[in-house]
């Protein structure tokens, strides 16, 4: 597929990238690994006037551990992060979700920042321009109605990052830099909850760093998929257990991950937590498996993941 025309700028610093963004009056897209953006451009799901390349920003390519935090630059590739000794030792849930992301070839290209800020997916959305024109544009494309759930006022496309779930379970924070200044916020707070505008980020904001509290954890990542590589999660659950309790994050269903803090790890609490996740999951027929099955699998994966950690700890 041939790409649409656009200008190209390579930024050497975060400030320069934001300046390029402003030069094009906000009609620019940031490019890191490109594994999510390039197909969107090819399908004309995004038609920017310019692409601003962030890969040249050296300061975003490092992993460092200090002051009780592990700080990961947004340009670190999934493959390098997966093989980082600290991640292996401290955050097994992140290691597992990185392993479950796509395949090694794409892990070597895709960055952690890009993985977190990937667009949501829907069986009616990730299609060619011709297909979508014939079908009629949906809410996410600026149309009047949802093509999956007629009369729905909100887009329920699926957020498919594996690693956002494990990072949220690990209480990770993200640093954002933008024309309005810098800020740090909990990763779970960057989601808008609406699939047509996935992130509650300001225009031109760049995710620069992710930081995780350096505390040893036990963790399990469970993913529902039809192949054992390449595919996106159809439902997924990440659990991180630390001294003060377990945090569970459910994703792959709907436009934002959901977080559950488990107060206890007895059978009753786990069952109640899983039931709550099942009740909250709003699965609609927008992926390759039936919504009923995916919803039931949220509950099953929730219990499976927590019980796996509990049985390992014995």
């Amino acid at each position, binding site marked *: *597929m*041939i*790409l*649409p*025309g*656009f*200008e*190209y700028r*390579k930024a050497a610093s975060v400030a320069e990238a934001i300046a390029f963004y402003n030069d094009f009056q906000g009609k620019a897209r940031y*490019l890191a690994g*490109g*594994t999510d953006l*390039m*197909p969107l451009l*090819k*399908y004309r799901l995004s038609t920017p006037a310019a*692409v601003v*390349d962030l*890969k040249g920003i050296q300061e975003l390519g490092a992993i460092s551990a200090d002051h009780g935090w592990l700080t990961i630059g947004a340009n670190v590739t999934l493959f390098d992060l997966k093989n980082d000794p600290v991640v292996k030792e401290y955050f097994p849930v992140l290691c597992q979700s990185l392993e479950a992301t*796509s*395949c*090694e*070839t*794409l892990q*070597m*290209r895709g960055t952690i920042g890009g993985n977190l800020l990937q667009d949501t997916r829907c069986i009616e959305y990730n299609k060619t321009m011709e297909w979508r024109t014939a079908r009629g544009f949906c809410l996410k494309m600026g149309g009047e109605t949802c093509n999956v759930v007629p009369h729905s006022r909100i887009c329920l496309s699926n957020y498919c990052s594996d690693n956002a779930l494990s990072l949220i379970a690990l209480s990770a924070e993200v640093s954002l830099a933008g024309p309005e200044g810098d800020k740090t916020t909990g990763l779970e707070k960057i989601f808008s909850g609406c699939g047509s505008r996935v992130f509650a980020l300001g225009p031109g904001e760049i995710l620069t760093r992710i930081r995780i509290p350096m505390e040893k954890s036990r963790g399990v990542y469970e993913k529902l998929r039809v192949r*054992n*590589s*390449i595919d996106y999660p159809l439902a997924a659950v990440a659990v991180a257990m630390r001294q003060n309790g377990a945090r569970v994050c459910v994703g792959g269903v709907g436009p934002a991950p959901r977080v559950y803090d488990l107060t206890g790890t007895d059978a009753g609490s786990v069952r109640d937590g899983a039931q709550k996740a099942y009740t909250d999951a709003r699965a609609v027929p927008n992926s390759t498996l039936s919504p009923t099955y995916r919803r039931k699998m949220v509950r099953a994966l929730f219990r499976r993941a927590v019980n796996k950690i509990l049985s390992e700890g014995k």
Partner: protein
Amino acid sequence: MRRIVCTFVVNGVTRELLVETNALLSEVLQDDLGLKGVHVGCGTGDCGACTVLVDGLPVLSCSTLAVTVRGKEITTVEGMANGTKLHPLQESFIEHGALQCGYCTPGMLLASKRLLEINPSPSRQDIKDALAGHLCRCTGYNKIVDAVMAAAEGEE
């Protein structure tokens, strides 16, 4: 749309080209440099057929802007053989019948080459992991894994 002067080291030869800002690496390699061994399958990063090595790392050339890999060393399947002498992996693929239609083969060979460079004695699972992003609709994969195993054993 602007054109940018780009230098690539393609299969050991330095090439200087005028590249459009929206040109894909696969387009530059195929159309401008005539390297038809770069096979584009899905065009969206699912199949792995278009894989080339950029500075030794496998990269999907159909999903990479050519301007983003300026100045880098690019290896395509044409760069694997030494003159008329095939690379041991290529010999092994022929020996084991690891290709039928041959469309996925350049990607398989280059990803395997990278694997053997970092891990000279891989297990079958290591090979499967490294080739997970490469689809083959002919062989059923077993013969490809056999061929890479045999090449690894031969090199030891």
